[in-house]
């Protein structure tokens, strides 16, 4: 049987190639995902290993947990610790490492930002072996007035060695330095893709304003082990306040915490891999089913000459096993490339993922091979079982095809009924359950159930839908289209399975687009309704503020109307810690900021009177007319609650709103977080923009944005996400196309004599090609109809549930995008039919007629 199976594989390599491609594509996606995850992890590890290079012991503040590199409130290690560690026996050299905010300016005077993050500054360790970088050009800073910059930034900004570069220090002053070198951070991803400037240590302290080091590291003398050195340092008096680790622990611990992010990331992508594999599974199932049908006579002949059912079954399984192994191997190879590509893709979309060499671990190979092979064999099981039911007498019968009945078995009907019912119930339940997150899970589950029902009903849906789709084109375009419709109708099971894959892809894309687009429309609406300000002046990251002189400059400009600063601070209110307390200039209310009022009016807010967001009432145990006690550095402020508002989810409104005088008296802020600005009545947009720019010109860290910018930034993000998911789902679409191409190719082979007969009766080559194109078109339209219909329905259900739970929002059905998906799906299906159509048209008439099958 083995020999027979292999012979048949060789004989049918063309037919199996297409299904192998589908398996390979699915496996490639799984491999690619795993490879990407492994490579990212490896890059993280090597990055942190670079930081721990030559480090025998490291001292870091306790609870150094989650803070951005360089944030001002991060804990530190005082310089005295460095001195003491340097004198521990067995320490060859010790170095303090410092990371802080040091926004570097471009030659045009703007802050260089990578993503949203301005540049950071690090200090130059005295011991070259304990520096986490190498010199790329020039030299390291040799005096307080010199700096080096990372090579990527230097290249992007066209900096030349010997020029002056400017950095904004923590006091907001712009300081000039001589650029003397560029550095290569290599595989060190500690700083993400940020711009990095290297200062001498003393300068680094004065620029960043950090009170101490982030880390003190020590290099061991030859013969002293990491563990021994670490133990000695830990034994120093007062060291219990710090975490003391060996170099190896440092590398592993930090890489592990970073790798956690990688893992979530790969899990998300793995979901797409599973979708791809499911689609591939459908394609494989379909291919084997068709192959078994076509080989009915051959299998019957085998049974005639004495093959047992078990032998026929075994032969089919062996075939699928061989296909699975070969295709999976090909998929693993392709997945290596894909993993590399995915990493580039995500990097291109601005996700700060580390890059490094592509890593293929043995476990990846094993998982991908086993999954691919197993899925192939499982998918081939039902067709293989039906192969054993071929009666030996079928070998002798006429080869006239029996029309396939559209009748469905009771099992199929039962599955459809049960799944539709369950799906609708669960979805409905999810839509009612507006309180919690589980509503969405239920709607998603309901969607899956309904989808299974549609798949089960596929063979019943196909003939009427094709008749419907084919009616008008058939009238208009004539015989070829009518023939195509008849052909598409004749194997409902086959067509349903072939289109199922495409349907899955289109459904997911539609759901996703509807949800994303509605989210965008909702926040657009909220921005427009509640915050109709013209400009926002914002300070940079890392605790910078909009200084009072900028606020007064804005208020003094005749081209500008209302100018309202926003102050914001975390504080303890009514005993509840970390409550968001803020103040907004009175002029903003009614003009630029109009939150929905629950009770009272914001006009009531003034000395001694506060307003509270409705979502905070329970937490703070208060209500309209109640009291809030705000703990401030200036003492406890006791205020009456004069109004309750609903800030919504995209709000700039704080949890507790004070009057500006109360806020400044209590918290003494050095500046405002943001300033909202409206044009003066009658002032032109360019004039008001120029006035705002002039007011902030002295502070390069400040950014000015308009509501239009806000929306543009938002829609930019949304479009990126859409493109990213589009690219991921595109692979599922690609596999689906293999499915359609596969089905058509097999149908063409099956209908060789039929095509020849039609050619003999006067069908031109072009008509034959058009006929197959039309058949592919019908399949694509079927998938579009089902996919877009289901996707829009469940996308709508999800958005509806979201609106109910969030208490607001709009449903937006993005017709243009959905139309685009439909067009892409259709065009791709037509593309898939080109090769089979050419193949059919190439066959000479006489030889096909003579080929009595």
């Amino acid at each position, binding site marked *: 049987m083995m020999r027979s199976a292999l012979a048949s594989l060789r004989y049918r390599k063309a037919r199996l190639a297409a299904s192998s491609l589908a398996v390979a594509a699915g496996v490639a996606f799984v491999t690619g995902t795993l490879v990407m995850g492994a490579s990212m992890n490896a890059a993280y590890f090597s990055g942190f290993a670079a930081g721990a290079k030559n480090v025998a012991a490291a001292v870091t503040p306790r609870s150094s947990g989650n803070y951005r590199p360089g944030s001002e409130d991060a804990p530190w290690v005082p310089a005295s610790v460095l001195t003491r560690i340097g004198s521990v026996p067995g320490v060859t050299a010790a170095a303090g490492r410092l990371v802080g905010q040091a926004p570097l300016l471009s030659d045009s005077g703007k802050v260089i930002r990578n993503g949203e993050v301005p540049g950071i500054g690090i200090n130059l360790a005295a011991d070259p072996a304990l520096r986490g970088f190498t010199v790329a050009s020039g030299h390291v800073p040799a005096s307080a007035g010199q700096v080096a910059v990372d090579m990527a930034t230097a290249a992007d900004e066209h900096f030349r060695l010997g020029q002056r570069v400017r950095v904004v220090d923590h006091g907001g002053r712009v300081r000039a330095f001589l650029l003397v070198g560029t550095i290569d951070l290599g595989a060190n991803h500690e700083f993400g893709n940020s711009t990095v400037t290297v200062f001498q240590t003393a300068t680094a302290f004065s620029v960043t304003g950090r009170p101490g080091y982030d880390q003190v590291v020590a290099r061991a003398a030859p013969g002293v082990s990491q563990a021994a050195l670490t133990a000695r340092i830990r034994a120093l008096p007062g060291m219990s306040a710090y975490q003391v680790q060996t170099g190896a622990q440092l590398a592993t611990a930090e890489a592990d915490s970073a790798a956690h992010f990688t893992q979530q990331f790969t899990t998300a992508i793995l979901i797409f891999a599973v979708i791809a594999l499911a689609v591939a599974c459908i394609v494989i199932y379909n291919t084997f089913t068709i192959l078994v049908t076509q080989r009915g006579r051959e299998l019957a002949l085998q049974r005639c000459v004495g093959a047992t059912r078990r032998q026929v079954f075994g032969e089919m399984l062996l075939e699928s096993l061989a296909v699975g192994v070969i295709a999976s191997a090909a998929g693993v190879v392709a997945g290596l490339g894909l993993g590399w590509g995915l990493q580039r893709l995500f990097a291109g979309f601005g996700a700060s993922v580390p890059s490094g060499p592509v890593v293929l671990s043995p476990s990846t190979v094993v998982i991908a091979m086993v999954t691919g092979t197993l899925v192939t064999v499982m998918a081939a099981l039902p067709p293989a079982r039906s192969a054993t039911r071929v009666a030996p007498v079928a070998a002798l019968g006429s080869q006239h095809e029996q029309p396939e009945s559209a009748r469905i078995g009771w099992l199929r009907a039962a599955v459809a009924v049960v799944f539709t019912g369950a799906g609708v119930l669960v979805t409905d339940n999810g839509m009612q359950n507006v309180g919690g997150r589980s509503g969405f899970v239920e709607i998603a589950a309901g969607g899956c159930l309904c989808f299974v029902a549609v798949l089960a009903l596929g063979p019943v849906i196909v003939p009427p839908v094709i008749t419907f789709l084919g009616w008008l084109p058939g009238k208009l375009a004539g015989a070829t289209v009518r023939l195509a419709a008849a052909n598409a109708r004749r194997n409902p099971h086959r067509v349903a399975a072939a289109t199922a894959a495409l349907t899955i892809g289109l459904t997911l894309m539609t759901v996703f687009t509807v949800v994303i687009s509605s989210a965008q429309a909702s926040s657009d609406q909220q921005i427009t309704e509640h915050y109709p300000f013209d400009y926002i002046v914002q300070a940079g990251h890392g605790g910078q503020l909009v200084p009072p002189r900028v606020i007064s400059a804005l208020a003094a400009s005749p081209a500008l109307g209302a100018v309202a600063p926003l102050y914001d601070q975390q504080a303890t209110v009514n005993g509840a810690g970390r409550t968001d307390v803020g103040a907004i200039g009175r002029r903003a209310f009614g003009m630029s900021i109009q939150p929905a009022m629950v009770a009272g009016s914001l006009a009531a807010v003034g000395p001694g009177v506060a307003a509270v967001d409705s979502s905070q009432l329970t937490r703070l145990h208060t209500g309209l007319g109640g009291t809030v006690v705000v703990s401030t550095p200036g003492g406890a402020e006791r205020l009456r609650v004069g109004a309750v508002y609903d800030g919504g989810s995209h709000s700039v409104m704080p949890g507790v709103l004070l009057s500006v005088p109360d806020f400044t008296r209590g918290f003494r802020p050095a500046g405002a977080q943001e300033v909202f600005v409206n044009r003066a009545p009658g002032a032109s947009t360019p004039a008001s923009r120029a006035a705002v720019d002039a007011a902030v010109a002295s502070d390069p860290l400040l950014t000015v944005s308009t509501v239009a910018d806000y929306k543009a930034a938002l829609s930019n993000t949304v479009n990126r996400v859409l493109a990213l998911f589009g690219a991921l789902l595109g692979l599922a679409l690609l596999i689906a196309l293999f499915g359609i191409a596969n089905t058509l190719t097999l149908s063409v082979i099956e209908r060789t004599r*039929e095509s020849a007969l039609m050619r003999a009766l006067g069908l031109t080559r072009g008509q034959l090609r058009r006929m197959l194109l039309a058949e592919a078109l019908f399949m694509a339209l079927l998938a579009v109809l089902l996919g877009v219909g289901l996707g829009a329905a469940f996308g709508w259900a999800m958005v509806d549930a979201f609106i109910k739970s969030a208490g607001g929002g709009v449903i937006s059905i993005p017709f243009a995008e959905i139309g685009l998906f439909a067009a892409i799906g259709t065009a791709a299906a037509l593309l898939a039919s080109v090769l089979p159509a050419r193949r059919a048209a190439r066959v000479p008439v006489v030889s096909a007629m003579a080929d009595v099958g």
Partner: protein
Amino acid sequence: MQPPVLAPARAVLEATDLVKTYGAGDTAVRALDGVTAAFAPGEFTAIMGPSGSGKSTLLHCLAGLDTPASGSVRIGDTEISRLGDRALTMLRRHRVGFIFQSFNLLPALTAEQNIRLPLDLAGRKPDPGWWDTVITSLGLADRLRHLPSQLSGGQQQRVACARALITKPDVIFADEPTGNLDSRNGAEVLGFLRASVRELGQTVVMVTHDPVAASYAGRVLFLADGRVSGELRAPTPQSVLDYLKRNGE
């Protein structure tokens, strides 16, 4: 029965010095080795010969399904041996009808759709009078909505006959049309072909190896080793058998 007019003034179908070879070099086989034959309008000709004599190849070359290596084929005024694929397709669609031994019908189409197929492909409508004539004379009126799989072998061949006739072609080519039928159904199809020649003036060229089938024709051409080896007018089953015996078959 009157024999047809000898040396017709104008043959509707004429083959001159047809040569067709398969393979190349030493293994080349001359399937047709200089065949010259003329077919008059309204004539029913049977082509007979042993297996490998080239009778199917001749039929394919005459019908424009296959192209000869040399020689010429003329249908009406058209020299077809040098036509391109598209022109040949148009010729088959409009001027030639086919009946094959098996697999004559498209399984996905009903009997009516199968019959109309050549007209549909050309975007034409059948002439209602002619449609009724063809359907009635073949007794297919109550079978039009059936799929081929729901028809008997004889009924399927009658549908094929109707399809060949519906375009009023210059020539109908039939390749062993009764090969898969029992004698009663075979006689019915052959009788119909003869009637279409006598009553409707159709020209029919039929390949067969059955002397009884050949006896329905007005003339039998005998082929051997790719050449015309003889001709018999107004054949009967007995006269055909006698001819075959005389020539050592």
